[in-house]
């Protein structure tokens, strides 16, 4: 069997690609893993942009100084997060596989997933305790129990214990969800990268 000619002759077969298939592919709705990840990032940007002004509004509404400080921190943190998310999104969108080698594309995909996921997880880990505290203080403040709370250490102990449970729990839940979503895919990309490099 003449291998090369057999292989090249396949190009001459008829109906290898139907016009209908081309049109369908051009307007594909289904998203691959990276487009899903970028879409998730876009939603996060929109969500952060919409809700950040409310934290600054809360600074005005909440009466206590602790509450004001917490909401100010959360607001600033959201602005920083927004900058990072937008930066990461722009990098991801500018990624053009048609101009890169297979190895560069595999590395780029892996980097995109790792960076985005790490950014989300770290942002969450820092934000959970402050968001929890702010919510708690806001509730106390709205219920007019702030003065009472200042005299009762057990109220703050409840908050502390709750945060100590909720923060790592939320962090590990986010990590687990990300692992469930991306681990098999990143393993596959890493395996292919190793295949390219192996001697």
């Amino acid at each position, binding site marked *: *069997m003449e*291998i*090369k000619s*057999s*292989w*090249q*002759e*396949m*190009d*001459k*077969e*008829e*109906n*290898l*690609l*139907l*016009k209908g*298939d*081309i*049109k*369908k*592919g*051009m307007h*594909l709705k*289904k998203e*691959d*893993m*990276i487009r899903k990840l970028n879409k998730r990032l876009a939603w996060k940007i929109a969500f952060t942009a919409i809700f950040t002004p409310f934290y600054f509004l809360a600074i005005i509404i909440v009466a206590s100084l602790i509450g004001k400080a917490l909401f100010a921190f959360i607001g600033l943190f959201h602005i920083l997060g927004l900058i990072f998310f937008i930066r990461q999104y722009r990098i991801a969108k500018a990624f*053009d*596989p*048609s*101009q*890169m*080698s*297979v*190895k*560069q*594309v*595999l590395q780029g*995909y892996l980097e995109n997933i790792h960076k985005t996921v790490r950014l989300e997880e770290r942002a969450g880990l820092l934000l959970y305790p402050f968001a929890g505290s702010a919510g708690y203080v806001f509730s106390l403040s709205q219920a007019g129990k702030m003065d009472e709370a200042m005299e009762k250490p057990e109220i703050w102990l409840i908050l502390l214990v709750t945060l100590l449970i909720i923060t790592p729990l939320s962090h590990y839940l986010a990590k687990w969800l990300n692992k469930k979503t991306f681990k*098999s*895919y990143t393993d*596959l*990309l890493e*395996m*292919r990268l190793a*295949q*390219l*490099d*192996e*001697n």
Partner: protein
Amino acid sequence: MKEDLEKKFVALLEANAGIIYKVTRIYAGSSDDAEDLRQEVIYQAWRSYPRFKGESKFSTWLYKIALNTALTHKAKEEKRRSIPEQSVISHSETLSDSKELLIKYIRQFNDAEKLIIMLHLDGYSNDDIALIAGISKNHVAVKLHRIKEKLALNLKEKTNGN
């Protein structure tokens, strides 16, 4: 304007249909997966087409996109597990036995080896393959030598079997 671009793109894809056909036949794990991969390749090519300035041949550009897409594509697990290789259906069911056999043998290589042998069989030089894969020319030569040996062995076994 957009219509012209679409028409030109469709015509170019039809003229180079063999590339998409071969990449999907070699990399897809099932008929559903082949359909997914084919559409993903077309989508990626269409998305990148406005940036195609003709610095390389369209076929090389398309091959690169098709391979990049195939190597970053993940088949749905259940499909990949449950459907055997033989059921990767194509539009053209008329391939001769020797071509089907060749496809079968190439499918047995790992994903990086598939890429190298496909490009080699389509007449790309080791320099071009190295550029597309992102590895050194020497590395390509070593891998290609090993792949050819394996392929020759498979074909010899087949001949002896007959």
